[in-house]
């Protein structure tokens, strides 16, 4: 893979006791929209801040577009746009002054017309001081700053946090357009629906360790399916469905729910033999996949 973001054994400890990131090996391709998933405290923000050289690794290395994130940190930052998880801006500067200030710090040219158009698209008033903006509007202004000079790599820490559903869709659209023009979007989230919506691949982080990297479709495909069977009379006993990979989850009012890991053919045959009236089978949501991941892993 022609990697836009690559980490090798990247680790971060604080003092001798806190391990924030544990030997992260990761590659994200150019032009890819990559979702970095995990609960609070998993190490998502730590990874992004290591990539930007805001904090220094305790071990391992990272590179962006072939540039070492520590040795060539200035070049790396010239290639990246960053949206922090908790966007804080200079309260006394207006949106316009904020954009002008950060625009003057960028190395690549910034197109004012594009920035104004993007602000309008995000329904953001650039004349207001950052200090009086709502959380959502600060988030929009932060996103605008990250996208100022259309950098080839975007590192976004929970980019839609605080935005209403309509604006979330607008942001997703913008990110897709950025990917279409060739930008790599690396973003962290714990909102499964948005990852499912726009990501091609996801990495799942837990307690500082990368537990899985896979395309969203693979992740969902290879996971357990939920099968709901409705019976006309009292359903047969649990013993009737003791099959490999099948687990009875719930039973109520003539309805039995199963989770099936693998092929559901055996279960369908068994249900048919016991007079099933209706059958529903669905793929799990990413949310369910994630929960399964964490339940399987158990506490660290």
């Amino acid at each position, binding site marked *: 893979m022609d990697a836009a973001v690559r980490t090798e054994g990247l680790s971060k400890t604080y003092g001798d006791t806190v391990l924030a990131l544990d030997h992260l090996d990761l590659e994200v391709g150019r032009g890819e929209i990559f979702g970095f998933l995990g609960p609070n*405290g998993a190490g998502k923000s730590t990874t992004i801040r290591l990539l930007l050289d805001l*904090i220094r690794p305790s071990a391992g290395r990272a590179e962006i577009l072939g540039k070492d994130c520590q040795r060539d940190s200035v070049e790396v930052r010239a290639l990246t746009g960053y949206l*922090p998880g908790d966007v804080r801006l200079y309260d006394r500067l207006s949106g316009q002054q904020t954009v002008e200030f950060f625009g003057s710090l960028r190395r690549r040219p910034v197109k004012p017309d594009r920035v*104004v158009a993007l602000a309008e698209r995000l329904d953001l008033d650039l004349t207001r001081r950052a200090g009086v903006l709502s959380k959502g509007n600060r988030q929009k202004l932060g996103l605008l700053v990250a996208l100022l000079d259309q950098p080839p790599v975007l590192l976004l820490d929970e980019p839609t946090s605080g935005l209403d559903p309509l604006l979330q869709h607008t942001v997703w659209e913008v990110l897709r357009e950025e990917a279409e023009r060739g930008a790599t979007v690396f973003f962290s989230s714990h909102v499964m629906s948005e990852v499912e919506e726009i990501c091609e691949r996801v990495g799942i982080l837990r307690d500082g360790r990368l537990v899985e990297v896979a395309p969203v479709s693979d992740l969902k495909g290879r996971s357990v399916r939920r099968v709901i069977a409705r019976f006309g009379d009292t359903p047969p006993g649990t013993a009737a469905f003791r099959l490999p990979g099948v687990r009875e989850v719930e039973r109520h009012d003539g309805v039995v729910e199963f989770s099936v890991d693998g092929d559901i053919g055996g279960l369908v045959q068994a249900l048919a033999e016991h007079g099933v009236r209706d059958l529903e089978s669905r793929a799990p949501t990413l949310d369910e996949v994630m929960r399964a991941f964490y339940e399987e892993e158990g506490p660290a």
Partner: protein
Amino acid sequence: MRALPILMQTLGGMRTRSIVTAIALALLAVLASLEYKELGDSLQDLAGSAFYTALGGGADISTPEGFLSAYYFNFAPIIVIVVGIFASTSGVAGEEASGSLDLLLAQPMSRVSFVAQRMGGVAVGLTLTLLAGVPFLAWGVELGDIGVEAWRLLVATGGSILLALLFVGVAYLACALLPTRAEAGMAAGGALLIAFFLQTLGSTSEAIEPLRVISPFHWAEGTPLLTGDYPWPRLGALMGGNLLVYGAAAWAFNRREIAGAGRLPLPGPIRGLVKGREDGAHARGAVRLRLHGRFGLAAVVRRSVRAWATPVLLVSLAAAALGAAVVALYPDFRETLGEFADSEFFSGFAGSGAAINTPEGFLAVEYFSWVPVIFAVLAFMAAASSVAGEEAGGTLDLLAAQPHGRRRLLAGKMLGLALILSAGIALSYPAIILTAEGRGVDLPAGGTAWAIFGMVPLTLLHLTFTFLVVCLLRDRFAATVIAATVTAGGYLLEFLAGFVGALEGVQKISPYYWTDGSILIVEGFDPLRFLGPLVIALVLALLALEAFQRRDLAVASPFGLRDMVSRSAWRGGELQPEAEGGSGG
């Protein structure tokens, strides 16, 4: 549930401030008493001065009561009031800006109860602080052979408490009426300055004299309390003033919006004007971004200059006004000052420069003994805010994510602050020289220039030292405490060396010794005194740049210094999980 939780929380939050302030008051009390003993009979020559009589709270400054009133009961309340303004503005406007006020007011408690407890906490804290100074005052009075009974010191302290609380009430009222902490602080600070100068300068001007009655300092004069013939209606008026101001603050706070415009409902046309100012001059959609050129670090320099322009300008204007006032007053005091030409006290105060009855000596005592330390304090506040403040506020993260080296970013901040502080210091020069010309005071232009610009290396020394400390410690409070300790320690060392022979050699470690304006104004340019501190400042700046380059940013970890020192070992190290979780998200 704990009784009066907000009051107790406010009181707890004032603990460190109160202890530091009480120590300052104790020092002031002892120094004032020793000073009285040192000056002795020579003070008789100031007995007829209206200015010093006003400072002495209506009594001759040569009397024990007048002297204590001038040198303790004038300044102790001011110190406490400044602390009170900081505490009160952070407790309302500061919390409003940080968002925690929302959470507090969402609890089942009335706003009036909240603000009353906040005000009560600060009032109790400041009262205890002033009372803590009384035993030291009594001790100093004994050391200095000043014949004032201890209970009278307590009564006079009561007057100071009422005065301090009144200005704290004004600060709360300002917080309720004005949108930001800075504006509230400036309004309360402005009221304090105006009231103090009305009281002191009013005595020297017939035009101002009638206005002294509106100054709370006039109603809380120390001498009448110390002598026992204090008119009780005055005390009642002061208490009435307190009730009025606190009542108005509670009323206004109850009516205002929280974390919105932050002020009382205004009449339509004024509201329109204010809204226009807040929302910017441009109509929405008519924004024209100025992004034609790339300015790089110039933007960081400019940003630092703009962020600190207002406080530096205000302090610089005050310093320039003080310098001009000192020069303007000199001809009136020339004769009287002759009596103090051989005073050890004033020689110690003025360093080893000119005698106090010369323009250079008078300027040294009344201007160069105060102003450098004010700029030093401003420098460490600016440096601490520019790194630790921005780090805590989250903006440093975004700034450091831009394509510039860390060293260059910090250098931009240092350069911006150095420029604005140097420009501020320079403002005093034309003010002093033009006033000297106007009043016919014979001040050497070259020596005055070197003495004033000698404050630049001193200020830069404090600036870069604070940058270094804050880059090493990552804790704004700890950095500020260390920088403040160094500033105060250096100043006290230089000051006390004038009286204590044993400190004469040691004083050379104080930067104030090397940048002593009283010497520079007489001797002119001295490469060692001028360039020495500049070179040290440069070395400190380079160390700070290196420390900033090596540290982690905005991580709530107590291991920063140790991590930084051992950084060379990070590559290739094998790590094992030793504890749950991480610091990052």
